[in-house]
């Protein structure tokens, strides 16, 4: 949830990208000067299987509006079996979050290989548009500490 509340509000999206495939794909998108929205921030991890579901919870708690976990296609993992575990972990986490009221579009996972630069750009653009339509996330958000808005809770989250 970002501080600014006016209409050209920009969502804050976190993307955990695996170093061998998706991060390389993102660099390739840069090399080809492809353009995509600014509101995705990439965190580099050695393998998508390093991403602990608790990082995703932490992101929502600290005010992220959307989280993306990207890795190599199953079978292509640089570490051979990493993304098979990723697949199971995040299919279950996505359902658990949806079950707790978070819109599944806010948490997505995608397989993007090192050469699929266009797919990276399209994924980012698509996720950014979807979350911009959903608006700021007020679920699971902690009382964001802001010395001017100390006690007032985010509206909608707390009745």
């Amino acid at each position, binding site marked *: 949830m970002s501080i600014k509340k006016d209409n050209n509000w920009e969502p804050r999206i976190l993307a955990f990208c695996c170093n061998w495939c998706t991060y390389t794909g993102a660099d390739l998108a840069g090399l080809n000067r492809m353009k995509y929205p600014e509101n995705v921030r990439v965190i580099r991890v050695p393998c998508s299987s390093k991403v602990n579901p608790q990082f995703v919870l932490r992101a929502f708690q600290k005010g992220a509006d959307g989280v993306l976990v990207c890795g190599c296609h199953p079978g292509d993992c640089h570490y051979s079996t990493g993304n098979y575990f990723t697949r199971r972990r995040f299919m279950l986490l996505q359902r658990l979050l949806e079950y707790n009221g978070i819109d599944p579009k806010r948490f997505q996972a995608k397989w993007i290989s090192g050469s699929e630069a266009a797919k990276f750009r399209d994924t980012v653009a698509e996720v950014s548009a979807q979350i911009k339509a959903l608006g700021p996330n007020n679920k699971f958000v902690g009382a*964001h*500490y802001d*010395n001017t808005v*100390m006690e007032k809770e985010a509206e909608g989250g707390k009745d």
Partner: protein
Amino acid sequence: MILAKKDIPKALEILSKEAAVYAPSIRKIEDRTTGVIQEEKIFLPFEEGTEIILDGPNTVKPPKDLLFPNVEKMYQYKAAGEDSYIREILPEDEKKILFGIRPCDMRSIESMDKVFFTKTYVDSYYAKRRDQVTIVAIGCLQPERTCFCDSMGIDPNQAPQADVMMNVAGEPEGESYVLQAQTEKGKALLDAISSLDQQEGAEPYQGTVCSLKIRKAEDLDKKLAGMFDHPIWDKVTKGCIGCGTCTFLCPTCYCFDIDNENYGNEGCKYRCWDSCMFSDYTRMAGGANPRPTKKERLRNRYMHKLSYFNERYGETLCVGCGRCIASCPSHLDISEFIEKATAADPDAVSYTDVPAGTDRKEA
């Protein structure tokens, strides 16, 4: 002053003009899938139409978190070169009225006052909240099966330290209450609602007695002081699972931990409840832990309630409200322990744990 039962909501509306009134009422959460409506009796802010329940079982959570909240911001800070600052955050100036608390909870507030005010250091946060609150205590009518406050030297009908004492007039089913102011604040409160005074009514009912009578030795605290290595501890503490339920629901537990929350180069320091039953409460650097197993921790809790507090403040810290008995997952019972400790021979070598309930059927 005599107040009719039906005038209670009116009285509270008058009072809630200048101060926030907290009274025992039911928090309902409707579960649409199973149709069950979860109900819990706790102290809630009074608004129009909230149904106040003064009799029946005591609240699940003690009034403690109105004076000593679970999370309390202490100070905020920012590190940004010249305009860095550290600012203390005192509780807001908000007058509160605590309406309808029982003598056992009132006694627990007295104990908390001793802790936070006496012995040279006054806790500014607690002090601020305590000054702003006016307490209206009510005489207990139907003590629960787990209540044993009169065995701990508390009269269920009297709360000498409260600002206003409320008792039912005449028999327990009486239609009105007798209110007696016991402090300046109490007088001011009664003046505010004097318009509802019925002038005449029967004497305040003083006959409530706890159903659960337990045999407690007079000098139990001194006896326990000598029983630190007594074999009773091995037996009594076995079933504990080391959770924090009893400490967080106990009205007289006041331990807290201090933590901070950082956002970039600014943040705030807050204190929050902590429990001596947690395994990491006394864990030190390097992993050493003077109280490594649940036996030591539960022994420490019982000793603090029944012996250590006496050494320092001269009174027992257990007010007999029975909340820890009602909510303990393993159904352990401090009253059972008090009876066994009273009956135990201090220098015994072995001890067999005979369940206290078997010889004393429920009254």
